[in-house]
């Protein structure tokens, strides 16, 4: 019985103390027809337990199977350098096995860390406040949209402007999550040359009422939207502005709080680049920041600094009346368990990197991606697609179907990028590529050579 401490003697003594003869008797209230016997018989697929040694062998084989791959994909998940200290500290039992810090006095470690996180993330976004995490970037965007619907009293429409340069998966998630609340998502087209929101789509009629505008930075194509103009335009038309940004990018680029005259109202996005491994897509965490005036609409946990009985500073969950465990059906969101441990990692990551370290990471990723695009564009038939400046990923087009090229690169253990054939068929054989600070020149060269051979060889790609 793995993990169960009871000896037979102890079990017997406990049963005696309870006053029953067998453990089975404790389940007497389960109707007979549903009891183990019956259900058990129906359960096929009985399988023996494994010791840690045995499951270890299996898991090591499987991890080895997936190992050793060279990655040039981004598209919302980025492989950055993570200092070893991040996860050595994060997996300390006291962080790893603690619960949500409801008992503040017994959770000052987690609480102070989360308060520090809120401060760092607010500063990075140039916003007033941050919550303590949501599930991921996509659901954070959905929650941001729900916030604007609650908060924008001037708008009655529940219509949200969302450019096509927002990650298509995010748009899908938002659709799933907000559709039952009468919210309409209106997509904005992009300029086919520049790969940013087409200004022509921005004309709003006299009676048009939109609740909010979402602005991505960088956009899904890696390009930089004209965030200042868009923000001012939206504010002029009574909308709230949601910035959906990459947290490493805004170490260098204008953060949502600085956009236009007044800054965006909400900043959200995917926290993964800040110290979280790729892990096939999760666990990551969504961040969500806003202006002070919106704080009561913010979903998720918030940590406040306060004082104890002896007037010493301390930290506690606060404004809990926003949350489901108090407000129930009227809560700002249904979220309960969030992504606390990822935020722990991310906070330690930001402390280890510091502002200058994060800037350097951003700069180097930017430079490496430019080297990558330059190198790939030198291959015959490969074109750099959009003309706008880009941060650390960009779109190239290939002379062959991207899906086939990517499949051929598998044989060389290379993830070449993300195919846009399904989500943006109008772009042709388009692929999104990225090189963070981790990608050395040698690796870029290895990729380029592999791509050359794949493109050259007719047979290989079928």
């Amino acid at each position, binding site marked *: *019985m*793995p*993990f169960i401490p009871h000896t037979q003697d102890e079990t017997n003594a406990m049963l005696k103390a*309870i006053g029953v003869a067998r453990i089975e008797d404790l*389940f007497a209230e*389960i109707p007979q027809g549903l*009891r183990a016997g019956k259900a058990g018989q129906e*359960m096929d*697929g009985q399988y*023996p337990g494994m010791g840690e040694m045995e*499951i270890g062998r299996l898991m090591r084989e*499987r*991890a080895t*199977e*997936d190992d050793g791959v060279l990655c040039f*994909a981004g598209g919302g*998940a980025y492989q950055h*350098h993570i200092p070893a200290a991040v996860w050595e500290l994060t997996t300390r039992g*006291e962080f790893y096995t603690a619960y949500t810090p409801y*008992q503040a*006095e*017994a959770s000052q*470690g987690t609480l102070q860390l*989360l*308060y*520090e996180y*809120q401060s760092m993330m607010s*500063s990075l976004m140039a916003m007033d406040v941050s919550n303590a995490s949501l*599930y991921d970037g996509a659901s954070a965007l959905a929650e941001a949209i729900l916030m604007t619907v609650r908060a924008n009293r001037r708008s009655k429409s529940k219509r949200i402007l969302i450019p096509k340069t927002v990650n298509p998966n995010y748009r899908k998630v938002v659709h*799933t*999550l907000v559709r*039952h609340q*009468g919210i309409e998502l209106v997509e904005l087209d992009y300029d086919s040359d520049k790969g940013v929101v087409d200004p022509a789509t921005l004309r709003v009629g006299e009676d048009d009422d939109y609740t909010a505008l979402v602005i991505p930075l960088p956009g899904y194509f890696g390009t930089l939207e004209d965030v200042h103009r868009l923000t001012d335009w939206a504010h002029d038309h009574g909308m709230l502005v949601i910035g959906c940004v990459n947290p490493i990018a805004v170490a*260098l680029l204008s953060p949502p709080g*600085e956009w236009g005259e007044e800054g965006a109202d909400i900043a959200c996005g995917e926290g993964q680049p800040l110290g979280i491994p*790729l892990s*096939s*897509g*999760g666990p990551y965490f969504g961040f969500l920041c806003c202006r002070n005036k919106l704080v009561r609409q913010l979903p998720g946990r918030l940590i*406040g*600094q*306060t*004082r*104890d*009985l002896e007037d010493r500073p301390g930290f506690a969950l606060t404004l809990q009346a926003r949350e489901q*465990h108090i407000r129930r059906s009227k*809560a700002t969101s249904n*979220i309960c368990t*969030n*992504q*606390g441990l990822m935020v722990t990692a991310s906070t*330690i990551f*930001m*402390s*280890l990197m510091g502002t200058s370290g994060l800037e350097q990471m951003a700069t*180097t990723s*930017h430079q490496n991606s430019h080297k990558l695009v330059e190198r790939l564009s030198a291959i015959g038939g490969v074109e750099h697609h959009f003309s706008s*400046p880009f941060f650390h990923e960009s779109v190239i087009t290939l002379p062959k179907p991207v899906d086939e090229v990517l499949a051929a690169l*598998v044989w060389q253990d290379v993830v070449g990028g993300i195919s846009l054939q399904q989500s943006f068929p109008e772009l042709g054989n388009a692929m999104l590529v990225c090189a963070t*600070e981790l990608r050395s020149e040698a690796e870029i060269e290895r990729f380029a050579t592999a791509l050359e051979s794949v493109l050259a060889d007719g047979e290989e790609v079928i």
Partner: protein
Amino acid sequence: MLIFERSEEGRRNSAQRVISGGQQGQDERPLTGIPETMKRATAARLPELSELQTVRHYTRLSQKNFSIDTHFYPLGSCTMKYNPRGANTLAMQTGFLNRHPAGDAALGQGVMACLYDLQEILREVTGMEATSLTPAAGAQGEFAGVAMIRAYHDARGDSERSEILVPDAAHGTNPASAVMCGYKVREIPTDKSGDVDVDALRSIVGPQTAGIMLTNPSTLGVFERRIEEIAEIMHQAGGLLYYDGANLNAILGKTRPGDMGFDVIHINVHKTFSTPHGGGGPGAGPVVANKRLAPYLPIPMVGKSAEDGCEYYWVEEQERPESIGRLSAWSGNIGVLLRAYVYAKMLGSVGMERVADYSVLNASYLMRRLEQAGFTLAIPGRRATHEFIVTLKKESKDLGISAMDFAKRLLDYGHHAPTTYFPLLVPECLLIEPTETEDRETMDAFVEAMVTILREAKESPEKVKGAPWTLPVRRLDDVRAARELDLNWYNR
């Protein structure tokens, strides 16, 4: 001391520089083509520390936490059992950590094999038809389940159904999730013995009813005995049954939601499958559905094909056109699911039943001991399941010592407090869940602490009201926290 107070401008943790020694400072044009207006005007203010300062700061912070690895943590509804270290080590192998989610499935057969197996295990143990692992936590699983119920009714053109029923004792996420799916929430009362009031249910159910959300054992810590009758009532009225899997630990391998008549269930793997709570998350909330609801499961799921080369593949919308869609940018909390998988494989099917056996044994023992020590059970005369409720209404009235006071004083005795003030309908309650991984000695020490506190409550109540005394801080002022909001060091 806050990390910001240790920060010093100009300090650099150059061990973490990401450009090599030679290159440093050489590039004169750091940003290609980025217009000045797009650059950040004021630098972010992350702390600037040496690596030792950071390591020391967070190591010391960590020590201020209670955790399973350091303390008994009998937090009802949360299933704070041992989180195997082996699961952590095995999930954190580089092969798993470095896999990009957009990478070809051919480069992820290792992880996908685990996920596929886990889908099967969860399907088996719940008695259902199919699993989607994608929800990030229980609440997202609830959303998914209720959205699936809605999709089912919609698909049948049965769109007038506007209400979801929820017991008054339910967890807050249940009504909140139902509302996110566009439903009105109707509360159903609980009878004195802790069961759903079936007569009330009968009178409430109607053509407007889309479904009911239950957890069994309920949040009151008792098994819903008339579950088959409830399922019949619901199904006859055209409503469906949602099972909140938070309490699955008590019945694992003993009885299955699918056999009880539920149509869909979420599983909090961070409870029953022992993935860590991490100070608040992440968890994962796989949803498992019967035949009726399986077509609506969220995507992606992992499929297994007979073709060779690439055995496992992602099942997307093309293959599941009726799906409620996508819940996260990729496919959920895979790192968490890997830990759950390791745990499930270590248990095996026999081990699963043992989880139920011993979690119920422990709770029953602790309940009996506390009852004998003079504490009042919220629902006397019922069997405990994996948890049970003590009400301190009497102590609160007679001695002025609240459940909160008990909770805080328990911290001084080295035990994390049970869940307080939930479920809301029981006054001054402690919801106590020891879990199967605790030993008798620990539970005996807990009883002793409770007895001591009761004595203190009578003899020196200030000791209890002033608690805790031995922690890094004394009792914190929650009212002040909310009134004088201080959420950001840079903006106070």
